């Protein structure tokens, strides 16, 4: 069953377009991100956006079962984020490759944004 109102159908399509644009931006950050923590953050927001997209799809197609999928995906995405962050934490502590946090210098110019 499709949603019957023209306004609601258009609103669902606009919401899906905005969510897809957000996901494409996050893919760019996921490919580029200078630090590994940036990639974990991008994946975290990506999982949140997948939950949001499932909810919008549930309104658009009129099938209520997508909400259960969204609940399960929210649980699993939290576990995935925690696991990745703990992995990075342990790797940084064991290898000791990273320098200690240096004092930020406010007089230094910025190289990039």
């Amino acid at each position, binding site marked *: 069953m499709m*949603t019957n*109102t023209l*306004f*609601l159908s258009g*609103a*669902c399509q*606009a*919401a899906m377009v*905005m969510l897809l*644009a*957000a*996901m494409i*931006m*996050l893919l760019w*950050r996921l490919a580029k991100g200078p*630090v590994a*923590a*940036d990639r*974990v*953050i*991008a994946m*975290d*927001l990506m999982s*949140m*956006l997948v*939950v*949001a997209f499932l*909810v*919008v799809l*549930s*309104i658009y197609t009129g099938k*209520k079962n997508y*909400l*259960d999928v*969204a*609940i399960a995906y*929210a*649980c699993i995405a*939290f576990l995935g*984020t*925690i696991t990745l*962050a*703990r992995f*990075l*934490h342990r790797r*940084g502590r064991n290898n000791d490759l*990273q*320098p*200690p*946090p*240096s*004092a*930020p*210098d*406010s007089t*230094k*110019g*910025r*190289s990039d*944004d």
Partner: protein
Amino acid sequence: MIEYLTGIVLIIGSFFCLIAALGVIRLPDPLTRMHAVTKAGSLGAGLLVCAHALFYQQLGISLRAVSIIALLLFTAPVAAHIIARTSYRSGEAISDRTWIDQLKETAATRQGTNR
């Protein structure tokens, strides 16, 4: 009538999700990017789930929507805290424009404790 309300909440929520992704693109270091993800992303996804509960108006659907919102609001700060601690300890997470680092000062005064 309820369709118009649902559509307006849908558009506002997805706009906040777009703002969160824009923050991840534009902000300078992982700590500020996480600020965008945790606040704007949770608000956007929560508004979309609210729109879903508004549209169906059934008890089971509303309970599931409330559980999704509670799950988002409980898990996002925990994940953000762990990522922030990891990225601070790795040492390369702070932008050059940062000029207040109170955690570093606290760790300097408290010698010997685990930062």
